[in-house]
């Protein structure tokens, strides 16, 4: 039987940041859908762009702001 090992670790503050980012993008998506529904496509796109731009610093932290190897938390290992 093949064993699949999944290593996954995440700091609480990263979880918080992910939730914040998801919230911003979700709000932007809601604004987009609502505005398109009422015939304001331009406003919808700009609304989404607004929230996307607002989310950029957080995305930059999530994607590019990485610690040195030794600073990573101990990983959880799931073995099957």
């Amino acid at each position, binding site marked *: 039987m093949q064993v699949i090992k999944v290593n996954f670790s995440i700091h609480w503050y990263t979880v918080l940041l992910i939730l914040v980012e998801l*919230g911003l993008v979700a709000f932007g998506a809601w604004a987009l859908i609502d505005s*398109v529904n009422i015939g304001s496509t331009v*406003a919808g796109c700009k609304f989404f762009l*607004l929230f996307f731009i607002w989310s*950029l*610093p957080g995305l930059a932290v999530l994607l*590019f*702001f990485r610690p040195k190897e030794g600073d990573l938390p101990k990983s959880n290992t799931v073995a099957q």
Partner: protein
Amino acid sequence: MELRSGHEKAESLVGGSRRRAVRKWNVAFMVRESFMNFNKYVLYGLWGAAGAALLWFIAASWNMNVLLWFFVFAALALAWWGLKFQISKKAVALASLIVSGFWTLFAFLLFFPFPIPDPPQYVVGEVHRFSELEHGFARAFMGALGPNLAHSAAVYASAEEMAGMTTGGFLPNFASGFPFARATFGGTQLLDQLRAASPKGGDPVKIQQFPWKSYEGDHRPYKLGWNKGDFLLGDVAKQMGTTKASYSPHENTLMIKELGKWLGAKHVAVAAVDPRFFYSHDLLSAGTPLPLEDVKQYKYAIEFMVDQNWSRVHNDPGESWWSITKSGCAYSTSGWIAVRLAAMLRDMGYDARVGLGGQQYDTIESPVAFYSGGGEYGRLSNVVVPEAGGMRFKSAVVITDFPLEVGTPRGYGITRMCDHCDRCARACPVSAVPAGDMTVENGVKMWQVDKDKCARFRGGNLEGNCCNECLRVCPYNKPDTTFHTLGNYIIRHSLIAPYLFGNINGLGLEDWLDYEVSAEAGEFNVNRPARWILEEPGYKMQFPYQVGQYIFMPEDRSSDEEWANGTGVKMGKVGITYKGVVWGKVPDKFLDSNGRSRNFHHDAEPSSELPHNLPLPGKVLKMEEAKALLKSGQAFTGGTNHPDDDVYPPRSKYEHGFLSYEDAVKKWQSEK
């Protein structure tokens, strides 16, 4: 936080003293060093740009565009930092917490239910009743602003057609100039005869006979209920916990509101009557005085607000021939609701009388909207009612003695919002909407629109009647979706919302979003450059000026008369400097796809589409003649800015000295 690139680490291997020595004379080394420090300089540059954007945002008074650049530069700086430098775990934690914390704080400031500001006290001095002939449209129709504007219908109808309209009961004006406008406003004409059981103020009112033999108009010997068995409407019964009507004021109000909404009203407001709500003189009968003694029984006012429809307001540019029909539709519908429910109240044995649009009112409507707790006065001198699309509604009013539970003024944060927002003032093609602070007129402190300018443009625009621009750009003009309901909540409670949404000092979120562009109407959703009717060059109105029974006195001269006769033709916003923008050089951001400004007039029209030397609808009098007519009771005059001695008939006891709304209501309730 460690800010060292790989190049720097290599550089650090070189001995410190030797490096310093090399630095002194080796230019090549310095260049190489600079190149190696490139990453650091880029990072400093990006943070500098972010900081500059933030300072610019503050310096440019909360300009949304600039704020967005801050986020872009901050993100680039963080990304560059992460890509080019060693990042510690502590730095990641700190950065994550700073970003998360910022947005958590932002969300708290936006969504926490901070206390709503108290409703403003608008009455600050002596308030006089308003003559219906003194509102902008009445002055335009009656000729008080000049003969050309009074004959505005002549630009799209022949003399024969105009005569036909008059015979058919329509005033030949911009509201009756083409078929659909005539059809929609015709609804209000049809309803006019159903406004009351008996005429008041010279109105052409007919009694609608009730078939029951016991019916004697205002004097029914006993009261009837809603129906046999006194069953309440289901949803009201649920609120009352019983199906059986008890006719308490609370229950009556719930029923009236439910019935009004059932018939098509977006919002129903109920307020106690302040006698200063009543007009002093009637428009359609050209000046009949409306004595308060005749209306003492009316203690309550019910306002039925009908939405003019988001899609229409959104998709039809204000300066098109369709604009006026939106008013006509909503006036007719609200009038129909009010007429039917007033008939019901009369049939139940109560007195009820209807005021409906646009010229068949007995009272000013907007105080009913405010004192019922429906909204607050905004920058447009009118009440913004969030539940009814902001100001996108027209309404009809029933005044009655039917016992009702009245509302009280409620805070909505609207005044605070309007204080930070000037979109309507900027959008107004003729600068009729005040851009500054509130002012006091007739003892009322509020933003006062220049009604003459507004009416001249709306009634005399040759490229389409009415205007609608202020309504269209108002942030409260949104459809009734959950998203925008949340927006209203935020504006009510949040301390930062006025800065975020408003734009008094810069470019607000609403400007950036540009809601007034409609996908449904596409490129057709732009205004035409406006042309409008002027008076003859140098024309000066003569006073006293009599129309019907009413005399306009010298105090009634428009403060914008030079503007109206084209002196200099620097009309509208041309040549006005405001917020550093000289109108005439229109900033790109205000141009549409055709390169035309949406809120700017391109040319003026010195009445080339009208015959010259048109007569006034009324006649000019000598002052002695006017005084003699007034003193003998053959003519009347009023107006909020006239001295007491020049008002005929004399002002009521409610119009002397400061009297708050609450005190006026108390006194009026005790009048028998």
